[in-house]
Structure formats: C-alpha cells, structure tokens
C-alpha cells in the first residue's frame, strides 16, 4: 500500500500571525514539503492544479520535474490534473516528458475542477464538464497507446497523423487515477478503463464515500478488469498531530476555524466526528485511518492533506516527521494484516512494465503455437 501527501497549494494567511506568505515562499515550501515526504519514507507527493488566486500550482509538471530531479524514490502525482480545460494533447506530452525525466516515478489523477470561471477562461463550457472529461480522456488514453492517432471529436480540433512526443517511457502509459467526490459518472469512467479511483473523502461523511467506492468496485468487475476487491482505490485524509492530543486541538483550532474551505462553519469537534479529519495524537490518527478500510475495503493509496489553511512550513515539516516516523510504519503493518493475497498494490511503472512484458510473452507464445498449428 502507498502512503503520501497531497497539496492544494493555497496561499492562506496564518491566522495566528496574520502573515501571508508570498507566492515564491509558498512554491518553495511546497517543494520543501515534497522533499521531506521522501526523507520521512512516504511514497507519493501529489500537487493540485489551479488557475486562480489564492492558489499557486498552475503548472504541475514544472514543479514535479524539479522535485523529480531532487528525489530518488518518491512517486510524483497530481490531485488533480484538469481533464476538462487542459488540452489532452498537452497533458499527454507533459506527463510523458515527466516520465522520462523521473525514470517512471509518475502517475496522475484526473479531475474536472470545481472553479466555475476556469472553464470560460480556457474556452470551455462548464455544462459540458462530464462530456469534456469523457472525450478528452478518451483521446489522452489513445495518445499514450497509439503511435499515430487520427481523431475527431466535439471539443477539440481534429488530429490527422498525429504522434504525441515523447512516447511514454518504455511504451508504458502513466497510471491514471480518476478523482471525483460526488459524480458516479467518473467512478464509472475509472471502472470502464480499469484505471484507479480516488475519493477525496476529507470533507465527506463515510456513507457517501462508501457508496462511490462500491459503485466503482462493482463496475470495475463488470468491465472484466478483475474482482471488485481488486479495483484500485485511493482515499484522502486530513490530520493534525501532537504527542498529546489536547496540544493538537489547541494548536490547530485557529487554523480550522479560519480555514478557507470549512472555516467559520462547523465546530472542530463536529467536523472531526462527521468527516475523516483527525486532530489528536498519532495513535488517534492511526485508529481513524485504519477504520477507512471498514467502508472502503482493502485499498491501495492513502494521501494526507498536511499543508493547508495557513499552517507555517516549520509546523508542516514537524507534522511530516510524525507522519513518517510514528503513523505510516504502523499503518503499513496493520493494513498488511488480513489483506487478501489477490488484492494488488497500486500500479507503478515497474509493475506496469512487467505486466506488459508478460502480456507480450503470452502473445508471442500464442503466435508461435498458431504458426506451428498452421504448419501441421
């Protein structure tokens, strides 16, 4: 199972000091957080994509390429890449380029984006959001798998004899997750292609998350990619920890109360009771995260949101130390217990390459047999 962090990339004033970091400070902080993730033994770093203030990450592959050059093991991903408003051709090119630079340590998560004006800014119609996700991803899927693509669709200029370069590393497309909070259509899309499904459950009650994942698992099996238990599931999480849980609550409360998403709304106590947010000791985080399996089944990827709401970099790095030293090792051990042997790990470049080689070998053998059969 993979553990990692995902960042929104918001520039938010620290409510305890009133100070707002500069864009440069925030961008550098995101990089420092990514490097720290590798240092403390996490597996994945994912960045959001936004095209409006107060967010900075408009150019994810630029940032991930820089992180790739300074890390050895970390898988670089997104949370999410806008499949609606980006040109699928540019996504194909950017992420294939990143794959080569990062020696395959790349996957990505498709999302539609939830900021209305981004659609018109990029010449798109938000009412076509689902259809854009469907058509654009279909093209992206082909661009990584077919050397020469002839294509015509509704939302983009046609392609005749187009080759997206560079070709994916070793001829293996980056693994794709589809992220959606409330659209069953996207769970269906992920299932159709046999891709991963990520539910960012951090602001949602468990029963909603459960229904989305059950739908994805059932449809994954329906499309013949494996059993429902073998579908590739990722979940979000949101935590703030101190050794002593009272210290965690006291320190995090002003950030919670003023957070851009849920600030000035529910109480910290209500929100932690109703959503995956955990503010407390590492042990409490372990217990709450392990309980995700009760409604999501054995899953493949757990990403935590650690650096939002104006938390200073120093605090976030301390949080990552706690996550890497005290939480994730226990989670790895506990999640491995009673995990059925047929539940796969999240696909990586190495595993996809091996699967491709195995398929090729099988195909060669079949061809050979057919040839011999024809001769006899």
């Amino acid at each position, binding site marked *: 199972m993979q553990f990692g962090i995902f960042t929104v990339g918001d520039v938010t004033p620290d409510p305890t000091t009133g100070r707002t970091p500069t864009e440069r400070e925030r961008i550098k902080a995101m990089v420092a957080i990514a490097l720290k993730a590798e240092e403390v033994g996490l597996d994945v770093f994912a960045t959001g994509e936004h095209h409006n203030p107060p967010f900075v990450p408009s150019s994810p592959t630029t940032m991930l390429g820089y992180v790739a050059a300074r890390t050895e093991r970390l898988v670089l991903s997104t949370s999410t890449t806008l499949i609606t408003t980006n040109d699928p051709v540019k996504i194909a090119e950017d992420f294939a380029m990143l794959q080569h630079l990062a020696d395959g340590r790349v996957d990505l998560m498709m999302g539609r984006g939830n900021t209305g004006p981004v659609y018109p800014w990029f010449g798109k119609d938000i009412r076509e959001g*689902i*259809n854009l996700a*469907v*058509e654009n991803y*279909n093209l992206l*899927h*082909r661009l990584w*798998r*077919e050397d020469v693509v002839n294509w015509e*669709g*509704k939302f983009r200029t046609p392609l005749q004899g187009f080759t997206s370069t560079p070709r994916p590393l070793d*001829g*293996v*497309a980056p693994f794709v997750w589809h992220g959606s909070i409330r659209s*069953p*259509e996207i*769970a*269906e*899309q992920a*299932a*159709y*292609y046999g891709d991963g499904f990520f539910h960012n459950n951090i*602001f*949602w*009650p468990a029963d*909603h998350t459960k*229904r*989305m994942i*059950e*739908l994805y698992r059932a*449809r994954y099996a329906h499309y013949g990619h494996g059993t429902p238990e073998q579908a590739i599931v990722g979940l979000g999480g949101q935590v703030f920890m101190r050794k002593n849980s009272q210290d965690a609550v006291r320190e995090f409360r002003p950030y919670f109360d003023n957070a851009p998403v*849920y*600030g*000035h*709304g*529910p109480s910290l106590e*209500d*929100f932690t009771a*109703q959503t995956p947010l955990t503010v407390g000791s590492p042990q409490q985080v372990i217990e709450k995260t392990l309980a995700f399996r009760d409604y999501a089944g054995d899953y493949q990827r757990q990403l935590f949101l650690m650096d939002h709401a104006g938390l200073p970099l120093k605090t976030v790095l301390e949080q990552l130390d706690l996550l890497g030293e005290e939480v994730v090792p226990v989670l790895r051990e506990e999640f491995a217990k009673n995990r059925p042997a047929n539940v796969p790990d999240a696909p990586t470049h190495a595993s996809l390459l091996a699967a*491709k080689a195995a*398929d090729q070998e099988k195909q060669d053998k079949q061809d050979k047999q057919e040839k011999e059969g024809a001769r006899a």
Partner: protein
Amino acid sequence: MKLVVVSAGLSVPSSTRLLADRLAAVAAPAATAPEPAPADVRVVELRDLAVEIAHTFTNGFPAPALADAFAEVAAADGLIVVTPVFSASYSGLFKSFFDALSVTDEDALTGKPVLIAATGGTARHSLVLEHALRPLFAYLKAVVVPTGVYAASEDWGAEGLDARIERAGAELAALMAGLTTPSKGRTPSPKRDSFEEVTPFAQRLAALGVPGPSPAP
C-alpha cells in the same frame, strides 16, 4: 402513506406551527380515507435544524439530524410547508432549508404534492403565497395544490380560515391519494438513484461519437 410537515416558525408556541398542525389534521385522515388509519405525520421544525442548515452551506453536506429530515421529506407522499412572512417573502431559514435540500438531492421534491401556507402580522402580505412560495416549488418540480393558506393575526379570530384550511387540506389529500393509487394509473415518480442507475460508459462515448478505448498495449 406519509405526510411531512415543514414548519419554519421561530417562537414557541408559534402560529406558523399552529397553522401547520391544523392543515395536517385535515389532510392526514382525508389522504387515506376510507381507511380508518390516517397518514403518518412527521413534523420537521426548522428552528431545531437552523445551525445544521447553515453548516450545510459551509461544509457541503448535511449533518445527521438534517440528513434525517431530508430523507423524511424525500420519502413523503405529500408535504405541508409553512413559513412566517419576513420582509415580504418566505423567511431566509425556510428558503435555506430547501436550498440545502436541493443541493443535496435535486430531485427530492419532483412530482411531490405540496401544500403552501404562510403566516404574517397583516393580511397585506397574503399574495406572498403566489409571488414567492408557488414559484419556488414550481421550480423544484413539486405539484403545488391550487389553494394556499395564508393566516394573518386577525384571521385567528375571524371567520373564513377554517374553510380555507379544509379546502386546501382536502386538495392535498386528493393529490396524495391520486398520486399514490395505482388503480388510477398514477404512481409517484420513482426516486432516481444515481448510484444504481449509472449510465454505461460506452453509451456516453457513443453520445459524443467517440469510439471505445484502444486495445490495451
């Protein structure tokens, strides 16, 4: 048969709730007649849910008690909705409840018989039913009964309110019975469940004229 009453009265006791109860007392037995047992009546007092309603807008999802109320409303065969008049319209709390409901479940009221009613300090606001409540529930695709009931302070001591309550309650009951009796060839629109009725993906691709995915490499 299930009748749900949504009351946005704020004081205790409230004339809004009083009107709601009188409407329910007429509609509940009439909806099931000639069966002796009246329709089950469940009252949703918005005052008790005010904070959870506000939090639905800040959180994006309803807290447990509000989610229960939404489920009651969605499962109802008929609704009685009553609001006090504030600033020449329904109260903000009343509107917020239905805003939060439709964000959570946009089809919750589709095809549902709804009796609209309001209370106010003066009869001058009686058309609030026609210029505020009726368009709101029309937008939410409810079937609004023809008679709405407005009760000004003076109506509680005058003739006429009884007759309007009787007529409106009977109209709601007739719609509830009519929309739920298969012998009349009408059944309530089945609750759409987007999780159980997901459109097969190939259909979505076909609608866009896009061929299926390439074979795996």
